[in-house]
C-alpha cells in the first residue's frame, strides 16, 4: 500500500468507503507494523507536545541566544489593536509562540521540520480553543496532515535545503489547511482544494535564514503561513476552488524547488540573509574565521 498522489488517496477512501484519515492510519499500520492503539497514543503524545510548545512560548520569556527573536508570541497576545479580529491575532500568537519555543531550545514536534514547527501547533490550538474541536477530531486532522506531507515529500520536497521555504512552511501550511477544513466539516474535495490553494499561495517562497539560524525570517513565516492556511481553508469551505488539481500543484511545487538557485536553499547566501543588515548580524554572531583552525591533509 502506497500513498503517492491525492487522486490515489481519494480512490482508496472511496473504494473502501472509509474517511481520508483512516487510509493514512492503515498506511502506517501496514508500512510500519504499528497497531491502531499505538498510533492513537502516539498522536496524543505529539499533540500534547504541540500544545505545550504554544503554552510555554506564550508564558515564558523568550529570547534566542542571538537575540534576533524576542517574545513575538507574547507581543501578539498583548495586542489591543486588531487588524482583523482578536481571534486572528491569537492565531498568529499561537503559531509564533510555538516556533519561538523551538528557537529557544524548547521541546517541539518537527512537523514536518523544526523550521516549520509552529504552524500546526498554532492551527490545532486555535481549532481546539476557538471552535471547540475535540481532541479525537484533531488526531484525525493530524493523520490527514501527515498524508498531505507524505505525498509532498515524494513528489516535491519537505526540506528547505532541497525545495526552499515553500517546502517547509508551505508543506506545514498545506497540512494545516487540510486539518482546518476537515475539522470544520469539509468534504474530501474541499480538503484537497485547500491544499491546492495553500500550495498556490506559497509557491516560490525561498529559504533565506539570517546568519543561517532557524530564527529570522522563520518565526515570522510561521505566523504568515497560518494566515495563508486559514485563507485557503476559508476559500475551500466557501465553495471556491483552485481550478488546478492538487496533484498538479504538487508537481509545480517540485519543479519550482528544483529550479531554485542554491542561494535560496538554506545556504544563507540570498534573500533576507544577503541584506547588508543580515550580513552585519552574521559577522557579529559567528566567530572570526581567524579563530577557526585549518587542517589540510598532506598532499
Amino acid at each position: 500500500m502506497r500513498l503517492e498522489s491525492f487522486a490515489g488517496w481519494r480512490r482508496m477512501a472511496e473504494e473502501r468507503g472509509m474517511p481520508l484519515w483512516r487510509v493514512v492510519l492503515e498506511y502506517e499500520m501496514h508500512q510500519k507494523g504499528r497497531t491502531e492503539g499505538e498510533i492513537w497514543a502516539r498522536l496524543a503524545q505529539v499533540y500534547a507536545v504541540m500544545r505545550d510548545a504554544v503554552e510555554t512560548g506564550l508564558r515564558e520569556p523568550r529570547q534566542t541566544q542571538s537575540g534576533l527573536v524576542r517574545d513575538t508570541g507574547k507581543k501578539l497576545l498583548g495586542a489591543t489593536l486588531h487588524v482583523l479580529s482578536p481571534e486572528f491575532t491569537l492565531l498568529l500568537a499561537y503559531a509564533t509562540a510555538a516556533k519561538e519555543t523551538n528557537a529557544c531550545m524548547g521541546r517541539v514536534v518537527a512537523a514536518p521540520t523544526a523550521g516549520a514547527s509552529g504552524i500546526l501547533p498554532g492551527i490545532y490550538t486555535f481549532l481546539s480553543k476557538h471552535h471547540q474541536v475535540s481532541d479525537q477530531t484533531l488526531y484525525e486532522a493530524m493523520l490527514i496532515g501527515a498524508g498531505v506531507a507524505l505525498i509532498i515529500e515524494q513528489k516535491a520536497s519537505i526540506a528547505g535545503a532541497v525545495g526552499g521555504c515553500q517546502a517547509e512552511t508551505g508543506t506545514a501550511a498545506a497540512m494545516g489547511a487540510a486539518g482546518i477544513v476537515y475539522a470544520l466539516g469539509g468534504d474530501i474535495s474541499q480538503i484537497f482544494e485547500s491544499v491546492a490553494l495553500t500550495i498556490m499561495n506559497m509557491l516560490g517562497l525561498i529559504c533565506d535564514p539570517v546568519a543561517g539560524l532557524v530564527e529570522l525570517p522563520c518565526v515570522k513565516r510561521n505566523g504568515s503561513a497560518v494566515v495563508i492556511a486559514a485563507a485557503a481553508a476559508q476559500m475551500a469551505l466557501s465553495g471556491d476552488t483552485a481550478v488546478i488539481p492538487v496533484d498538479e500543484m504538487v508537481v509545480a511545487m517540485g519543479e519550482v524547488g528544483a529550479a531554485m538557485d542554491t542561494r535560496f536553499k538554506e545556504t544563507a547566501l540570498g534573500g533576507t540573509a544577503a541584506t547588508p543588515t543580515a550580513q552585519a548580524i552574521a559577522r557579529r554572531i559567528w566567530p572570526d574565521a581567524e579563530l577557526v583552525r585549518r587542517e589540510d591533509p598532506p598532499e
Partner: protein
Amino acid sequence: MSQEPSGIFDMLGPIMIGPSSSHTAGVVRIGRVAHFLLGGPPEEARILFYNSFAMTYKGHGSDKAVIAGLMGFAVDDERIRDAISIAESTGLHYAFEPVISSAKNHPNTLVIYVKRGDQELTIEGISRGGGLILISSIDELHTNFTGQLPTLIVRAQDVRGAVAFLAAILTYDGVNIATLTVSRRAKDDMALQVYELDEPLREASLAYIRHLPWVRAVHLLPPV
C-alpha cells in the same frame, strides 16, 4: 541511505529540542553513541566541529547538544538547554575546537575524543539533516551506521572466520542483520565489525561473544 518509505511520525515528528534537526537533534544522537560505547558519561571530552559546523555550532546550540548526548540525554530531553552546566557540575572537562578541513567532505562533521576511567574512545559522526546521522569511524576504523537500529559493535583481533562465526550466533538467535561493515587496521590487527540488527540479540549471546578470547570489546547500542 535507506529507501524505506517515510511514516506519519516522520511528518509529525520527531519530537525534539530545537532549534535545528541537523545542528541540535542529530548532534545529540552522535554524542549518545559515544555515551553508550563508553558505558556512561565521560570525564574528559574534546569535540572538533568541522567545516560548516565550525562556523555555526554555537548559534544552533550544537555545543550543548553534543554534551547532552555525551551525558546520555535523548533528543527530546529538556535538560539539553542546560547540558553544559549540568556536565560541569558532574566534573566533566571539555573543550570545543572549530576546524576547517578539506579532508572532511561532509559539511556537518564532528569528531569526539572522550575518556572515562581507563577507557578512551574517538568517534566521527556526520549529521545528515532531519536528525539523521551516520557514524563514520570508531577509533579511526572506518564504519557506516545510522543509530536507528539496535547495533552490535565488536572490536576484535582480526582472526580468520570471525565474521561468519558472529553471523552464525546472530542467526541462531533469530536476529536479522540489516547491514554489516567490517574494517581493519594492519598495524595491530584490530578489526571493527558493526552489525545493524532488526532486533536486539539475547543477553546470553552478548555475554558469550564478550568472553571469546579474540574479542576486545562488544557493545549492543540501542537505537539513539
